[in-house]
């Protein structure tokens, strides 16, 4: 027996597309100064957000994003069926601790930087499956917590390579509902874990581009659509070089993305003036750009159909230390105005 709502190998088509009825974004100072600065709901200039550690600061960003989303939708935590969240820190502590504070039934997710899209896909499935009416989805990252965990202490004097990316300090949250007004989630394509042999943790775009390509190709095949059916094909955090690699990979599969592709990591920062090298990265990058800028454009109907592909690098400092290459994943959802 085949699954009723499954289309092709990896895609589901929702019978009643769930609605993104409210979104909220909270970002740090650098993101607030970036080109998308005015699309975020709140900018917190203090990297500690008034807390005593960066980890607590990141939780604060995530919690504020969730609370703001609930306020916009005029809902209380008890009105929400499930909270779907994740982040980059060990044991997804940002999400876990915020879930403790909100006391909403919680499903923790880890898809590295793809988490917001993983959450959108799973949340939409839960709603269209009839298991929930209201779902909160969110994800966060913080420059200093990510640097501390994955790279060097932040005050360590190191020189970054040109392909390195800058972890976004920010959190994005959205409310998925069975009914209401707002952009709709019509399809989701769950990605396979892909590894084309990149092992350089300072070149994440190169590691993740094959996962984005794999999911995009399967999505287009499954839905029998073409690139031209979308106003925008948006990737999570490939950065400038990952973007180029993705476009080249897609060309080899016979798809020309050129005019229709963009990347949250490129959109969020001004690469010329903000010293971010290849662009932004981190869970907060696709989360804040999607929940902010992209949803705004969909609501204004400047964009009508977007294929968003969140990309995540699924390594840890331990596996890198042991000489392993980087497994990566891309999760896609279709958002329609």
């Amino acid at each position, binding site marked *: 027996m085949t699954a009723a709502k499954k289309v092709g190998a990896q895609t589901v088509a929702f019978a009643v597309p769930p609605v993104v009825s409210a979104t909220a974004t909270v970002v740090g100072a650098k993101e607030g100064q970036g080109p998308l600065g005015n699309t975020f709901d709140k900018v917190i200039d203090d990297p500690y957000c008034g807390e*005593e*550690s960066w*980890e607590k600061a990141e939780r604060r960003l995530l919690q504020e994003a969730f609370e703001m989303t609930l306020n916009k939708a005029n809902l209380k935590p008890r009105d929400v069926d499930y909270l779907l969240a994740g982040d980059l820190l060990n044991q997804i502590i940002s999400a876990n601790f915020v879930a403790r504070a909100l006391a909403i039934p919680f499903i923790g997710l880890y898809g590295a930087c793809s988490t917001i899209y993983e959450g959108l896909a799973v949340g939409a499935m839960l709603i269209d499956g009839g298991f929930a009416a209201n779902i909160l989805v969110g994800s966060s990252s913080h420059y200093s917590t990510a640097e*501390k965990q994955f790279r*060097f*202490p*932040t*005050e*360590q*004097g*190191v*020189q*970054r*390579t*040109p*392909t390195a990316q800058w972890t976004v300090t920010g959190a994005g949250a959205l409310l998925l509902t069975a009914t209401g007004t707002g952009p709709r989630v019509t399809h989701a394509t769950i990605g396979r874990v892909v590894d*084309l*042999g*990149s092992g350089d943790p300072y*070149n994440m775009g*190169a590691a993740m581009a*094959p996962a984005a390509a794999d999911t995009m190709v399967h999505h287009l095949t499954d839905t029998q659509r073409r690139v031209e059916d979308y106003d925008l094909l948006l990737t999570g955090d490939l950065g400038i*070089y990952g973007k*180029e*690699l993705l*476009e*080249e*990979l897609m060309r*080899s*599969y016979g798809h020309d993305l050129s005019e229709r592709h963009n990347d949250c990591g490129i959109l969020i920062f001004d690469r010329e003036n903000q*010293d971010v090298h290849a662009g932004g990265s981190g869970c907060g990058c696709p989360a804040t750009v999607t929940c902010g800028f992209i949803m705004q454009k969909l609501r204004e109907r400047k964009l009508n159909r977007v294929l968003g592909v969140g990309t995540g690098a699924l390594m840890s400092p331990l596996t890198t230390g042991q000489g392993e290459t980087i497994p990566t994943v891309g999760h896609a959802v279709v958002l329609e105005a």
Partner: protein
Amino acid sequence: MGRNLKRTFDPNKPLEMQKQEYKQMVKKVSPKPPVIRNSIWAFAVGGLICVVGQAFFNFFEGLGLNTLDAGAATSIVLVFIAAFLTGLGLYDEIARFAGAGTIVPITGFANSMVAPALEARTEGMVMGVGARLFSVAGPILVFGITAAWLAGMLYYLFGPNAPAGS
């Protein structure tokens, strides 16, 4: 994009061949670090740190310290300055441009101890700062001490005062 990447990747080939082709693609797309610019910065800043060190050295010698003591006093001052700048959040800003110029001198060693200590203080003084203090500097110490021991042994065995020659 102007770069000649056409027909470099074939998704129908076996995975191992795809990996090879992809590696070439990544190499073509990813820019190399600006080695010459980085070297000039490293030379200038590293040299400047040495000049500052020399100035302190001369100053201490002028106060009447002998060469060894003046050297020790200079190291203490340079380590303090580097630790202080790390605490102010300035050392990493300089290192972004200076690279090896700020890593190689003794100031880099100070930075590599203070930076993890600053981060670990939220985890307490003992298991936080105490345990993490050497997380970056540890390898430098291990291999530095090993190298010093090896050099000392070689000097002892084959140097001018070697036991075999006496």
